[in-house]
């Protein structure tokens, strides 16, 4: 099943067709908060790619070796996964702040923001237990670790791509002649709507 073509489709599917931000609506809180300026969204996307991969690997391991065999996964997966993600983020943040303050300055400050990010939990659960989110690229009964990683990389790349393109748009937005009442957030929403129209279009290319 895991020919290179299959993996490539998995990656593109997760990144563009089912872009987690603009076509699945997951992870919008930081999307509108952080995209205010360009640098923060760059740092944020890097941090998301890094943490999401770590999170998905750990949830995949915990699911296949701990929760699934014991049969308790069905109702314990929410607290278990979110506990792992929160502790993982806190650990990485402490580690990074101590070991490399420079990297921490650039990327580390976004780490806590990722604990409450719906996208990370959604992808971690999807990588561990496919089909739960009914993403329309069906991932088969269960993902091998390699496929789970590729899937997560795809999703985080899509997240970063959407966030950065939206941040660039928003910088232009501040100077656009917009009626007073629409200034700021409402206008950001309308732009996000247009951007998501484009992403829905991308899905069309692939005949989905």
């Amino acid at each position, binding site marked *: 099943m895991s020919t290179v073509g299959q993996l490539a489709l998995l990656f593109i599917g997760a990144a563009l067709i089912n872009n987690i931000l603009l076509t699945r609506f997951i992870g919008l809180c930081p999307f509108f908060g952080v995209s205010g300026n360009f640098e923060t969204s760059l740092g944020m996307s890097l941090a998301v790619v890094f943490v999401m991969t770590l999170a998905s690997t750990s949830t995949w391991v915990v699911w296949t070796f701990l929760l699934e065999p014991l049969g308790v996964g069905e*109702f314990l997966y929410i*607290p278990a996964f979110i506990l792992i993600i929160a502790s993982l983020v806190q650990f990485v943040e402490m580690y990074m702040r101590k070991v490399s303050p420079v990297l921490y300055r650039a990327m580390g400050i976004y780490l806590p923001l990722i604990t409450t990010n719906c996208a990370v939990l959604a992808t971690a659960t999807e990588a561990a237990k496919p089909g739960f989110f*009914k993403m*329309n690229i*069906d991932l088969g009964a269960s993902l091998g670790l390699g496929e789970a990683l590729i899937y997560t990389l795809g999703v985080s790349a899509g997240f970063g791509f959407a966030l950065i393109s939206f941040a660039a748009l928003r910088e232009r937005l501040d100077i656009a002649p917009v009626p007073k009442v629409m200034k700021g957030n409402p206008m950001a929403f309308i732009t996000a709507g247009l951007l998501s129209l484009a992403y829905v279009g991308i899905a069309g290319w692939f005949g*989905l």
Partner: protein
Amino acid sequence: MGKSFRLIIAVVVTCVVAAGGLAVTYLATKDRIAEQVRLAEENSLKTVLPDAAEFVDAGSGVLEAAQTAADDVDCSAVYRAVSADGSLVGWGLRVAGRGYGGPIELVLGLDSTGKVTGVTILTMSETPGLGTKVQSEEWFLEQFKQLPEGFDSADMKELDTISGSTKSSRGVRNGVEAGGRIYTDVLSDLAGGE
């Protein structure tokens, strides 16, 4: 050392209480959930095969053969529909074609000659109001009944799709088409009903 010990205890105690509570709720609701799923399956089978009295699982051998026949569409259950006196009335298939929002699980009723007696949708996650029209537009599911016995993908061409939700209608059509393939490859020679 004492301080961090207290921290760990606090977390562990919360986990114990939470896990205990969740386990109890899970047990309380487990049977009801199973019941719901079985019930949904039961009456969807009844709607597609009205004159069948009872549905018998066709056994894992038949299921594997059906899954190979259906190949890209996954088939999760095959039932033998038998009437009161035990004679074979037809087959109930649970197949899942891929729609826009994800897999669309269908229950497909075929009579002993392989003609479609009915199609109902078990679960789907299409966009409400657009994709869900495959269910709300009665003519769409009814049109599968006109398919001849032993239909194949050629006959499927004439069926028309719902405007605005081509992907969802194609998902349903793939499911039914897979049912046709299962019938011609696997079920037709079982029609003798051992």
